[in-house]
């Protein structure tokens, strides 16, 4: 039972580093209690500057209608387009609505009036969605006016088509629901990726690894003894995350807690294995850090934590296929938010198991007992 002593040694080494042992507890707690509040893609409270060159009752009613909507804030009434554009340049407003001097006249006499919408589209989604909202309000206003001026035409253009929207699992479209599982995955990935990557290489730098190498301990038990502490750390981090999510955000898994622990155990095994591979190849701590940093950050961005995988180009989706994070995140969201059962999760489970086997075999094979 030499493995027992090896594991004991790893735990002692871990506990002796005062910074590390505190970090593992504090880091997930602080990050999960703050960061989900920051992550919100919602397009709302757009700052709109209105240039009303018409000043008629029609144009003023339009402006009032926009001001009453929940999407827009009116930020002053600039006198010219140039001035309004200055506000956009300084990020004081997001959009400009320009009503031409002949608005009322065009609408009543020519039966067709134009208005100009200019949106800051550096953030394309915000610009696009913002102008779609504004166009929607214009269309509503348009329908109102038409009804007033031409009551008969409207009734004939009404049909019995009803479109209703329903948001499953998250009726109020709260972003925290999406972000909390993602940030949990990110935390576990970082801790269970970075720490093992530093493990073997720091023993290389300290020279203690050679003392291990001259013992008859097999490569397999050596790697196993290095994996198990991170496995435990992963469980601790996950448990802290569950607590914070429940305490701060009122989120408790809809599905079974055991399912999440099961998947987490396979995921942590896989990702720590990847960390150990890095540690085997790196000659210095610095190299290990840069390599694992690159791997972790790439997987974080390519696995759909923040932006959906479906939006990526095809090659990006292939990269996400080889990321264990993608499967674990999927499972976290499914079990946490939707309460999916084990049967829905067989595919990601098999994928994660494959990663665990491949990475850890690789870690054992790439470990060199003799230089």
């Amino acid at each position: 039972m030499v493995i027992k002593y090896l594991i004991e040694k790893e735990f002692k080494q871990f506990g002796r580093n005062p910074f590390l042992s505190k970090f593992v507890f504090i880091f997930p707690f602080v990050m999960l209690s703050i960061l989900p509040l920051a992550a919100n893609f919602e397009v709302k409270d757009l700052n709109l500057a209105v240039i009303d060159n018409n000043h008629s009752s029609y144009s003023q009613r339009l402006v009032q209608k926009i001001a009453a909507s929940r999407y827009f804030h009116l930020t002053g009434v600039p006198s010219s387009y140039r001035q309004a554009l200055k506000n956009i340049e300084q990020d004081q407003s997001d959009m400009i609505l320009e009503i031409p001097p002949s608005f009322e006249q065009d609408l009543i006499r020519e039966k067709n009036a134009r208005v100009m919408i200019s949106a800051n589209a550096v953030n394309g989604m915000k610009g696009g969605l913002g102008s779609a909202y504004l166009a929607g309000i214009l269309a509503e206003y348009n329908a109102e006016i038409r009804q007033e001026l031409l009551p008969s035409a409207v009734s004939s253009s009404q049909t019995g088509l009803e479109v209703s929207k329903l948001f499953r699992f998250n009726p109020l479209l709260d972003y925290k629901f999406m972000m909390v599982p993602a940030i949990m995955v990110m935390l576990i990935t970082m801790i269970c990726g970075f720490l093992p990557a530093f493990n073997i290489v720091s023993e290389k730098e300290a020279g203690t690894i050679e003392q291990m190498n001259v013992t008859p301990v097999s490569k397999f038990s050596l790697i196993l003894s290095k994996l198990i502490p991170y496995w435990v750390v992963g469980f601790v981090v996950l448990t802290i995350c569950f607590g914070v999510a429940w305490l701060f955000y009122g989120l408790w898994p809809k599905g079974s807690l055991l399912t999440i622990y099961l998947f987490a155990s396979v995921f942590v095994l896989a990702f720590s294995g990847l960390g150990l591979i890095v540690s085997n190849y790196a000659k210095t701590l610095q190299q290990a850090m840069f390599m694992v940093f690159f791997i972790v950050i790439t997987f974080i961005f390519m696995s759909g934590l923040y932006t959906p995988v479906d939006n990526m180009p095809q090659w990006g989706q292939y990269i996400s296929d080889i990321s264990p994070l993608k499967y674990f995140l999927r499972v976290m969201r499914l079990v946490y938010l939707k309460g999916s059962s084990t049967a829905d999760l067989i595919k990601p489970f098999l994928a994660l198991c494959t990663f665990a086997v491949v990475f850890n075999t690789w870690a054992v094979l790439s470990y060199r007992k003799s230089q």
Partner: protein
Amino acid sequence: MNDFSNMTKPTAKGNWIFFMAFVRKEFHHIFRDKMSMLILLVMPILMLILFGYALNTEVKNSKVAVYDPSQDEATRAIVEKLQVNDYFVLHRMLKSPDEVDRVFKSGEVAMVVVFSEHFYESLVHGGKAQIQLIADGTDPNTANTITTYASTIINNYQQELLKTGAIPYQITPEVKLLYNPSMVAAYNFVPGVMGMIILLICAMMTSVSIAREKENGTMEILLVSPMKPLYVILSKAVPYFFLSVVNLITILLISVFVMGVPVAGSFFWLIVLSLLYIFVSLALGLLISSVVNSQMAAMLISAMGLMMPVMLLSGMLFPTENMPVALQALSDIIPARWYIIAVKKIMIKGLSVGSILTELAILGSMAIVLVTVSLRNFKIRLE
């Protein structure tokens, strides 16, 4: 330097010679580790290309399932219209309403379109034809966007069906998308990715290299030299400054020639801004190294501790105006936030240097504060 009195009280010229010797030593350290250098030079390029293309909040190709008990002319036409659109991909037809729950729970689709029975008949003969758009609310951005698009498409179909000709009293909006008319996602994300890469890599490099000397005990040897501690520490930052400038140049070349993100404003001021930002990032690394005693701690703080706030609070992904006030204040102290705003102004909007004076001033004061605090923190005496 064989004049001993010169060693104890160096003249300005002597100081300079010492300084250059220290800088040369640091360059040797870096060039000796070929692997690290390769990683440092190649990693930013790969990251910019990967994330520049992959980060995209614009929703397209969302998988949709349809439950259609009517199977008539109208429902087929609507499904057809949804399908030809870029936003949707028809995943499959459901056979019964019970399946709706299942396809969501297995995570197969983002939206299910449910038609009512006898759809076409009801539509034409004045009854109530109903369409329900059920979206997966676990991704609010996608859910909101695709239901909005789908109802627009359905409304258009309705208009066509009614064959209403020219509608009187029409208000037509003319939409102009400023700075980014084709809504390229890279215009929004490339400045953010630049800000993140520069900050993280600079802070990691400096903090770890100084922490390593502390750990090995060689820092003490440097500090007993006749050179002032300020110069000892600055000499460590100089090579990393050069390395970062090389990275900056490759990053800019790639964003212009590979990602197709133009430099609309002054190239000169973009460089000045970036150099200042590199300096701030290196100073942040100095600060980290001044409070830690081991490489491990330096790495955990600079890589993990900085990575999450920079990703989530700097405005690189998530708009800062959506954050609660307390978090906005937190995001104000992240240098990347100001760099990203300023880069967007100069690079994308093409504004003059006058528009980024605030950001330059903030980054400048951050640099001064960081350098002052970290120098004060450095224990320059042996314990």
